[in-house]
């Protein structure tokens, strides 16, 4: 049941911005949790696995280095043919990966990812509602 819900959310995301190739939700071990693909998509979501594994290691190194002084919001790879937006959700336990051609505005992709974070987190299997925290990380009763 939660998986159907995740696919529903991912499909809903795809409808908000036209022209996307793929939206995939993967965990930190690069296992695919949910995916949506357009007929134009040429890369299987599983093919992202190897890349994401190495990327995830780079993120871990980044967090541990003095450079990584604050939390990641998103990472964007732009090539001559596409944009790939990677956004950590659920405290970095999962990632949303969106691939789109260059003619899709990057700002629209980013805004969509940001706006759907809480919906995606709520759809994760076994996900408990997160406690509210203040800016210092203290739980607000």
């Amino acid at each position, binding site marked *: 049941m939660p998986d159907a819900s995740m696919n529903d959310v991912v499909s809903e995301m795809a409808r908000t911005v036209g022209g996307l190739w793929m939206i995939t939700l993967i965990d930190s071990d690069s296992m695919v949790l949910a995916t949506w693909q357009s007929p134009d998509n040429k890369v299987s979501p599983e093919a992202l696995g190897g*890349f994401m594994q190495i990327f995830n290691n780079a993120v871990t190194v980044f967090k541990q280095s003095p450079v990584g002084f604050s939390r990641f919001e998103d990472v964007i790879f732009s*090539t001559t043919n596409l944009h790939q937006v990677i956004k950590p959700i659920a405290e970095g336990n999962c990632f949303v990966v969106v691939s789109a051609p260059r003619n899709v505005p990057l700002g629209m992709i980013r805004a969509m990812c940001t706006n759907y974070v809480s919906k995606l987190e709520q759809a994760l299997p076994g996900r408990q509602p997160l406690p509210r925290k203040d800016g210092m990380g203290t739980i607000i009763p």
Partner: protein
Amino acid sequence: MSDMKLKDVLSEMAGELAGTWVIVVADNDGMLLSFWASPDNKLPPEMLGGFVQTINEAIDAFKQSTTDFGKLDDVIFSMGFSSIVIKPIADGACFMLVNAPKTVPLGMIRMATNNYAPRLEQALPGHGALPNRNGMGTVVY
């Protein structure tokens, strides 16, 4: 002499990106070629050069994991309080890295990195000694 030129270009670039903390040019081993840093910058430029090397592995994996994705234009890391834009220059032999607070618009940083990349390439030591190549890597006389 080349380093002086690089520094001049970086200073000019920084002048157009008010509020930027640091701009670094490093090779793909993370060795620093030149940098510009504002008085507000708290991160040693050498450390950012090392970060470039760390993510270079992920960039390589990205190139190998997919087909027909084209040449990498840039990588953007958005964090809670700051952004880092990394752009390969000189066919990926070097990288330009800009670290700025969130108050500096990301679009401005991207535009500046795009517009200054050719000038930085020309200021690289020994750049004039390289043969001209077309998109397929063939030497053009």
